[in-house]
């Protein structure tokens, strides 16, 4: 186990971690505005990839047209979910809200498989498989693209939250009662955050789909996404990015070290342990707000 190998694991881990951040950013966007922990984000990611495939393979559109079209469709789906399912649960106990997002997760996954079929399909976005050499390091080109997209989206969000609409969303995140009092339409803001989150989910679905193929396993990104979101603080986008890098590096290095010892399959274990330790030691995450109720 030489240092170079660990460094390579770490750098590739950081890149894939930034792609986990894509899933986590979707969770954070919704949690910030409405305090709904969206456990259906994994399913949304999967649906996003399937919709892109439907436009690209089914309708025969080129990829540059299919992805924006899919994003618009997914924004519609996000708005529908918020309007039909989540808005009526506002103010209900959190067990109902969690169960609703879990139910949506099961429903979306199954309906996608009914319509799209369960066999894994490739999604080509024109990134070559050839590895990228950075000095002595061997990088996965698809991961580099994914990480760049994640950072770009984050930059877009940073600018967006400076605009008028972004300020409205920040106000809702800060105190929705006060926002109501000054005439902000909280419903519209929450709906908008669902649309944004679905857009991010589509991006995540396309990037992960291009790496591992489009099938049901895309929805398993939920565990990674939620871990990154909790680690970074459920309401911090910047936290999601940094936690994504951190979790990616840790997961890659730890499973690289542990796998030979334990006989493989330790990735999910590492992620679950990170989630437990975060909640036990610092439940508000790295950059979250300190208003978590505990006993």
């Amino acid at each position: 186990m030489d240092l170079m190998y660990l460094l390579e694991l770490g750098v590739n881990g950081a890149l894939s971690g930034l792609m986990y951040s894509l899933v986590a950013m979707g969770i954070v966007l919704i949690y910030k505005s409405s305090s709904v922990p969206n456990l259906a984000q994994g399913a949304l990611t999967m649906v996003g990839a399937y919709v892109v495939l439907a436009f690209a393979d089914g309708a025969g559109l080129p990829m540059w047209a299919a992805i924006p079209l899919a994003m618009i469709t997914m924004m519609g789906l996000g708005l529908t979910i918020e309007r039909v399912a989540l808005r009526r649960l506002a103010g209900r106990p959190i067990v109902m809200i969690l169960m609703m997002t879990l139910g949506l997760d099961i429903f979306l996954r199954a309906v996608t498989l009914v319509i799209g079929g369960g066999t894994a399909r490739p999604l080509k976005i024109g990134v070559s498989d050839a590895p990228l050499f950075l000095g002595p390091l061997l990088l996965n080109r698809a991961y580099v693209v994914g990480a760049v997209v994640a950072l770009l989206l984050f930059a877009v969000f940073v600018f967006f939250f400076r605009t008028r609409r972004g300020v409205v969303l920040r106000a809702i995140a800060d105190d929705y009662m006060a926002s109501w009092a000054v005439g902000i339409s909280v419903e519209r803001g929450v709906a908008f955050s669902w649309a944004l989150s679905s857009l991010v989910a589509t991006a995540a679905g396309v990037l992960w789909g291009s790496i591992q193929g489009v099938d049901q396993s895309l929805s398993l990104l939920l565990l990674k996404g939620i871990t990154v979101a909790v680690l970074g603080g459920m309401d911090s986008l910047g936290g999601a990015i940094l936690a994504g890098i951190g979790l990616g590096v840790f997961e890659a290095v730890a499973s690289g070290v542990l796998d030979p010892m334990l006989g493989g399959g330790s990735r999910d274990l590492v992620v679950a342990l990170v989630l437990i330790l975060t909640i036990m030691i610092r439940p508000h995450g790295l950059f979250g707000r300190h208003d978590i109720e505990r006993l």
Partner: protein
Amino acid sequence: MLFRQAGIRHTDYASDRALFPIPADRAMIVALLAFGLLAPVLVSSLALSSYLTPWLVWTSATLGLNLIIGWAGQFHFGYAAVMAIGAYTTVHGVRAGIPWEIAVVLGGLMSTVIGVVFAFAALRVKGLYLALSTLALQFVMDWVISHVPAISGGVGATLQAPAMRLLGQPIKSEVGLYYVALAWALLVTLFMLNLRRTALGRALVAVREKDYAAAVIGVQAFRYKLVAFATSSFIGGVSGAVLIFTFYHAVTPEQFAVNVSIELLAMVIVGGLASIIGSWFGAAFILLMPGQINALIAWIAKLLGADIGIETLAHLPHAVYGALIVGFLLVEPMGLGKLYANVRNYLLVWPFGYARK
């Protein structure tokens, strides 16, 4: 009319605190018990072994989970892992030659120990974070069970459960196994019915409603959360063991994966939080309904001459199952138990609907 209350006067404390003060309820319970006891004669052996037995076992597990979520108000997203601990402990115990009755109690106790580990998460965080930490613990448990050869017998292995022997008598027939499941379900139901009127049950409800307020009136929230997790884990562990011995007859880690935890949660939610009859309904609904609706859809498609692919039919039950959860949360968040209570409340005063309910 049906649930006539006229002439029921409580002249002593015992009758006031009776589980079923209304004669109609008592008659219904007796009828249901009679059906339960005579079911092997009344229904076909296929229905007995593939519907009734699993329903009874899942009901016991649902009641155990409802104890934590419905009564104590704590989340548990890793209940299947707790059941797995009980199941594996019992199977290993019986294989090592311990009598079944003792092994099953040992399984329950082992689950209690592990369940208390889950409870330590509950002692630190609440709400969403408790849900996520129990979910993560489920993943860890899954991994440990499937990757430690001493527990699961190796990755991907199936462990055969030995034949059940109760008090030295081998129980092999479907009828015998059904009675074991029935006895366990009745025992858990009786426990839950009585829990409502004991100090423990009331303390749990106090903790659920507001733990600070409970602490103010002298209920130690810490202690009762631990007790709730321990008790419910015991029920879950024994239910897991009973499930293996009466229904699956072999144990693999996949039988207790994370989706099973979510299915149990769905049973609790669809049945109704803190509702005992709801838990019976919820388990039946989630267990049977997706398959039935799927059969219905297939039948309609055949009738219309439409061709539904094998793959579509394979995924449809899951879609139906997800839609059921979403639909129930939107239409009747308190679940089937509340629907039953509505009907019963209506009949309590029928035909004088204007009377006070």
